């Protein structure tokens, strides 16, 4: 699973962690409905999660589109805006769990956050 966060929002460590875990939980719950065996395999292998960064909203949306086209589970986190950023701001994109190769094909050029 990869969690791709917007670097331009300058979120604090705690904010970033919370947004990423929203994505992680929602992706897991969605994937459990569509592909429970994949989720089990992923969890048994350590539930690998990697946090990457993009520089703006457009790149995040483009990646979301590509991942959906590839048939992967995606989740875009919209912040409720209680703190730090305005309500409705898209902060993080979660992709997966999915086979490593399928994810790498999309995000191999991104930098770790």
């Amino acid at each position: 699973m990869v969690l791709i966060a917007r670097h331009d929002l300058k979120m604090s460590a705690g904010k970033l962690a919370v947004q990423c875990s929203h994505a992680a939980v929602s992706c897991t719950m969605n994937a459990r409905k569509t592909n429970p065996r994949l989720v089990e395999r992923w969890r048994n292998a350590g539930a690998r999660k990697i946090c990457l960064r993009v520089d703006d909203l457009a790149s995040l949306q483009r990646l979301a589109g590509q991942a959906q086209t590839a048939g992967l589970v995606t989740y875009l986190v919209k912040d409720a805006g209680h703190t730090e950023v305005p309500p409705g701001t898209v902060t993080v994109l979660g992709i997966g769990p999915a086979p490593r190769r399928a994810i790498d094909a999309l995000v191999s050029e991104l930098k770790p956050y």
Partner: protein
Amino acid sequence: MGFRSFLHRITAPSPSGEPLNGPCKMVCVVNQGLKMGKGKIAAQVGHGAVMATMEAGAKKPMNLEQWLATGQKKVCLKGRDAEHLLELEKQAKAAGVLTTLVHDAGHTQIPSGSLTVLALGPEMEAALEEITGELKLL
């Protein structure tokens, strides 16, 4: 079905427990004794959140449902070190709050097996407040 098992079925308490009334949240306490980057912390808290969610699905489904229905509120707090996290875990267990410890596999940044995050809940906010009320936001 025999008469006794029928009686049992209609009189036994529901396995899912009492419905909650009131806001529910999940708290992740991050070990500040380790020098982790922002992305590392985010991934570790993600581990804790997913593990706690699964745990709640098995043990306290009512909590999970309530929490998901109310926007899966999460809060990230600072813990001093591994001992501090374990001490909080003990308090939470005593209070009947679900606890999850995340140990890092150590692929990056920190030694393998380090205790990175303690996840508590999902649970009623008041119950969590008693345990983590004095901790600072991350």
